[in-house]
């Protein structure tokens, strides 16, 4: 059945996220918060996450280009990114953030730049993976009354 197929697809996609460690258990936690009243809670959260993080990431990238950027400021932004990424379960992104922060702490500007670049990569990758997932999910979220 088509519907079944789609659902299988969705489930497979989801599982791959965990397998690839793109997402971690906090994502599951978010899923648990979904219920009939909030069937798209996870998606809503990620919408918000993507929106804010995009801005933060851009800010950080901009900052790196600025000569007078201060590490403190950078760290602050990264800290923010860390908090939200961790809360949504974006594991790979979180890892990159942590790595970058460590490099930043050591004062390695070049290393930080590279780190931010990696962060951006993972971030985009996450987005690319999740967006279709959510679309599919929502399109097929049959009001299955549980």
């Amino acid at each position, binding site marked *: 059945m088509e519907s079944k197929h789609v659902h299988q697809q969705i489930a497979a996609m989801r599982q791959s996220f965990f397998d690839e460690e793109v997402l971690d258990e*906090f994502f599951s*936690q*978010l899923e*648990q*918060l979904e219920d009939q009243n*909030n069937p798209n*809670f996870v998606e*809503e*959260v990620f919408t*918000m*996450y993507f929106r*804010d*993080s995009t801005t933060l990431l851009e800010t950080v990238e901009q900052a790196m280009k600025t000569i007078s950027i201060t590490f403190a400021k950078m760290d*602050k932004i990264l*800290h*923010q990114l*860390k*908090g*939200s990424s*961790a*809360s*949504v*379960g974006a594991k790979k992104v979180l890892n990159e953030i942590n790595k970058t922060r460590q490099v930043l702490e050591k004062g390695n500007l070049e290393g930080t730049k590279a780190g931010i670049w990696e962060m951006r990569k993972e971030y985009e990758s996450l987005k690319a993976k999740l967006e279709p997932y959510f679309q599919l999910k929502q399109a097929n979220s049959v009001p299955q009354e549980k």
Partner: protein
Amino acid sequence: MNSSSGKSYMSTASSSVLWKAGGDVVADQFPAGLRVLLVDDDPTCLMILEKMLKACQYNVTKCNRAETALSMLRENRNGFDIVISDVHMPDMDGFKLLEHIGLEMDLPVIMMSADDGKNVVMKGVTHGACDYLIKPVRIEALKNIWQHVVRKRKNEWKDFEQSGSVEEGDRQPKQSEDADYSSSANEGNWKSSKRRKDDEDENDERDDTSTLKKPRVVWSVELHQQFVAAVNQLGIEKAVPKKILELMNVPGLTRENVASHLQKYRLYLRRLSGVSQHPSNLNNSFMNPQDATFGPLDLQALAATGQLPAQSLATLQAAGLGRSTAKSGIPMPLIDQRNIFSFENPKLRFGEAQQQHVNNNKQTNLLHGIPTTMEPKQLAGLHHTAQSMGNMNMPVLSHGSQSSQNNPLLMQMAQPQARGQMLNDSTVGLAPRLLSPRGQSMLSNGMATNVSTRNGVPENIRAPSYNPVSQTSSMFNFPMNHTSELPGNSFPLVSTPGISSLAPKVAFQEDVNSEIKGSVGFMPSYDIFNDLNQHKPQNWELQNVGMMFNSSRPSNSLQGNLDHTQSILVQQGFLSGQNRNSTVISKAMFSAGDSTGHVNAQNSNQHLNSLLDNTVRVKFERVADAAPANLYPDHFGQEDLMSALLKQQDIIAPAENNDFDFDGYSIDNIPV
């Protein structure tokens, strides 16, 4: 009791039963319905946490700014059971928020952050957070936050219990229940509560089980004043809850109440001394809670929080509102005051001023405490006033070795100022009243200075150099000039309405504009300092005058006069217009100075001269010219305020030690 989990369950069960017995609803539902205030600037986290908390069946209110959270809490003191806040927020540091909440509302606060560094967590602990969560937060961690609410309530109960009086006595059993209930972490509490537990009516306490309401000790202005007085008497180092409790001699107050309040107070003090330059934003926080009820409430709030203002407040209140606040006796150590004020209050300019002068900081604190109702702006104003006062005093102090004396004055002045500010809050616009506040502020200034000095910031006292006054003769003009800020002469010090309107702010800076009006009296003192610091040639004159006033008054005699003088000053100052301000002030000073009203004047005059160099002096003479009559059109309030101020000063003056002992201070004595 038993620490076994088995028992715990039983206790829990019984607790719920007990709670239920209280007749309130939801005893069994607890912790469902727990009212949580969630503060986090990250919208993603906010969304997730809110959902999680709702999943735990808590009643969640979220906000993304600390300031918003604080005002929500202040408006509705009993509207929340627990607060969860992020550490890193753009508008206010999470720890500052934590402090504010602890001192003003005494709610349990949980900090959270993605940062799990030991230092940060330690900071949370030292600032009084009851828990620290690392992001990403698990829902399991949130499920148990109710334990903090229970624990806190239990401790409160215990306090009551200990004192033996109060109805709370029978609530004790709850403690033991709570201990078990909270399980895990509360071994310690549990045991202590156990000790106290009486077995009888546990039910009584459970009345509000649903919200776990426990009669909480409200640290009113008077109470706080008493507390501060006791602490000062014992010496901050030696102040132990037991002795404080004995000294305070308040029926129904338990050692635990005192202990927890002392802890907060100490934190506050520490913070203050650590951030002398720090703008006392705190004041705002502190003060604001009472916005709604300026009258006694505000004072109380101020007093409670600011410690300092307690006395002033009382005085003010009494003066303005016609109430007699007994507490004048509480000496508010400058430091304390400052501490109170040290909260950062972005709105308050005080911080700025303070920073410049150590003294200022001190002063600021004073202010903070006082204006409970004052709007943040007002608070700022107060601060400034306080600051100015502080500054002012300094010069004064240096002048004579009146430091000790001055200090008391300062304190007093500061207090009055605070009061003034408070006054402002309510009715910012009372123009006529100005005078009183002014006078007071002047006094405060003197006091403030002293205070700060005492606190160890002697350097601030740079008399001549320090005086902003000299720099800006305009300082005196402050009240007058700043129509916007200080209603010039309209310090609504008088009476209740007046008092509220005294927005000390006015004196200080633009910020204060409207609000300070009320506190005109006060502001001047602060302003002066502020001015000095900020180089604002505002109407510090009054303040300066005030300061001088203080210095000149070596002792209480001044105070008596001061009362009068102040009012005069204020009035005059305001009435006559800017220039007059100084004169008015001087005048007030004079009168205040001497018991008969003259002696001191002269002294003050001298002091003024020395201190202020110019403005004051000149003004002083002019003051004499100014027809006092004009001054007091109907500012009875001012006079009251002044009296209050003076009284305070009187009281303070004698107290040399750094802690301003307001013991001798009794508002009722103020001779008007």
